[in-house]
């Protein structure tokens, strides 16, 4: 069947060779870089299509955290009377809600990436990693807006002298980095596994919710009994939440070791899940 043209096999230089199994530890980040414009356009698309044809438009970015915070204040603060470590309850819960929103949005959206984009993935090739990355960046913009709301509230409470931020606040980028990376890593891991085993979607649905209770979102670390705090220390998200509260609200339990652990955990998880993600991405179209 093959037509024989000149067979100068040795001298031919192919630009690309498609094979059943690619190198395992190739993260293909160079390719992502080549497609960086697409990352920008995806992010733009996500942001714009979020509020197109809504009356309140970008205002929706504020409404959700405000209402959630109010409900938390009511339920956990007033009814359950959980401690907020001496911090005004509205600030305490809002910091938790805004941070947790960012992580859980990254996680949830990334986890269904293959399912949500099957039509697109089936028609055109681009580094699949771009979609999770665009989720993280477009949510970062949302996070920035919501965090702005938190800061505005903070300014008021600082003015009346109820809280005093300190230098730990400068480590906010580290917190964001750890949350984004962890959200991405867990999300990609789930998305890779759910293409074949759909069961995991159900696990995801309540898993994220349960994870919230294992993270100091609605309670401070300082209130945890010694026996349980040892277990909760394994949660790489815990130091991040405590760090942010310590920096901006002046109260939190932070250790350097915990921060190093969280950052290392995030990076390792990201590398591992990228490898798995890239592996699945090559043939997921056959099983999705």
């Amino acid at each position: 069947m093959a037509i024989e043209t000149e067979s100068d096999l040795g001298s031919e230089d192919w630009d690309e060779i498609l094979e059943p199994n690619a190198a395992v530890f190739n993260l293909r980040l160079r390719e992502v870089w080549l497609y960086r414009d697409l990352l920008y356009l995806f992010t733009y698309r996500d942001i714009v299509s979020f509020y197109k044809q809504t009356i309140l438009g970008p205002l929706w970015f504020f409404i959700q955290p405000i209402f959630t915070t109010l409900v938390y204040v009511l339920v956990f603060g007033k009814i359950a009377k959980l401690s907020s470590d001496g911090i005004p309850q509205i600030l305490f819960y809002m910091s938790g809600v805004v941070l947790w929103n960012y992580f859980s949005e990254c996680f949830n959206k990334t986890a269904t990436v293959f399912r949500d984009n099957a039509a697109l993935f089936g028609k055109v090739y681009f580094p699949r990693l771009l979609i999770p990355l665009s989720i993280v960046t477009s949510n970062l913009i949302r996070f920035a807006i919501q965090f702005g709301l938190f800061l505005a509230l903070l300014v008021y409470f600082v003015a009346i002298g109820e809280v005093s931020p300190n230098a730990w606040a400068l480590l906010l980028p580290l917190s964001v980095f750890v949350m984004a990376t962890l959200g991405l890593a867990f999300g990609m891991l789930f998305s890779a596994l759910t293409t074949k085993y759909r069961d995991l979607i159900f696990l995801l649905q309540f898993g994220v919710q349960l994870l919230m209770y294992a993270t100091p979102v609605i309670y401070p670390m300082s209130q945890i009994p010694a026996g349980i705090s040892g277990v909760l220390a394994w949660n790489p998200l815990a130091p991040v939440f405590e760090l942010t509260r310590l920096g901006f609200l002046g109260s939190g339990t932070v250790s350097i070791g915990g921060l190093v652990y969280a950052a290392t955990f995030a990076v390792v998880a990201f590398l591992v899940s990228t490898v798995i993600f890239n592996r699945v991405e090559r043939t997921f179209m056959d099983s999705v």
Partner: protein
Amino acid sequence: MSAAIRFESVSKRYRLGEVGTGTLSHDLHRFVARLLGRPDPFALVGTLNDREVADGFGDGSRDDLPSDNAGDNARDETTGKRSVGSRAKRQNDYVWALKDIDFEVPRGEILGIIGRNGAGKSTLLKLLSKITAPTSGRIKTKGRVASLLEVGTGFQPELTGRENIYLNGALLGMRRHEIRSRLDEIIDFSGCAKYIDTPVKRYSSGMTVRLGFAVAAHLDCEILVVDEVLAVGDAEFQNRCIGRMREVSAGGGKTVLFVSHNMGSVRSLCRQGVVLDRGEVVTMAPISDAIRDYFDLNAGAETGAHWHGTVDPTSAFAVEHVSVVGQGQPSYAATDQSNVISPDEAFQITIQYTVGKPLPPMRVGFQILSGEGPVVVEAYDSDAPDCRGPRSPGRYCSTCTIPGHLLSPGWYYLTLNAGIPHVENLFNKAGVVKFRIHESELDRAQRTRRSGVLQPCFQWETKPS
């Protein structure tokens, strides 16, 4: 001329049946086999992609199989389930959509890929476009590959035409500055200049397609892969697309791979053709030979001037025999093959059939398809006024005489059809008979090949005036 693409024993296996049941156990089997150093236990099973045998459905049901409806992958796997229905087939849960594909495409070539539904065409393009990885084998490419498996992929309805050009271009691998430098050209080609700042959701489907193709047509790539996308859009736009692809290949030295069921556009665009059947390459040849082979595949290799049907005495309608026979004197002793007809010779198409029970007014007829693609004519016995009444049981023979000096030289295929108009289709079979109109002596003498499917001998009068 060096190669731009080379397929080296490329195979692709799909799993049939419902995914999700049994995958875990298969994965465990594989894992154990790998631990023991044995080969993949599922690499051995799997049949060639022969859907007709497996699912036993008619023509229509073949349309929704793995490799073809490039769109619905999710459904691919589940439609396969039907063919697993019979217990004998149960162990063949895997199917080879492509098996040991080996060929090479030289740079600057426009290659047509043809084959029936389910032959593996779309799978081939998907592998080449990196949408899915081959099960075994290697594909080597030189230069950037841009694939157009669907027009307007990733269009975001809320964004404007202009924004979507950027998005779509970036999806196909273009940088923003590249798109910006060609924006005017793209808008111009699409013919959507007036609506370019309107959200795409307000576009007509035709406009969406035009915009999508316009982006792809201005891609900066070395290899362009185009699937059946031209089926949409009007004739004028299709011609523009084909023109553009030809331009791209001739001027830019780009390699184009084109999949289509429309033999007309394949013929007008491609120089070389690959015929795929059941996942294997049947022919790789100049396009006219490839198209002929494709038609032969459809018709069955042994198809000649005669066809004998199987008569079931209980059925309401059965075709016994169909034949194409040349009338009168051939202008020269063409050949001893009975299905070769001289261009000036009238010929008869005879259909012999049995009607098993009284039928309302029905008709029996045929389509003549040119080997190059289009349907040339369609005719029914009910064209004759005395043949429009109810039909009582018995044997019938319908003969249609087609005058000489009508069809141009080439291969023709007959599709047989019988039915009660608007009520019931009694019989339909494509490619029952094939025949060839020989080149006329005049054409041979003048060494010309006229264009057109028909080549009637009109009346001409030329005199000094």
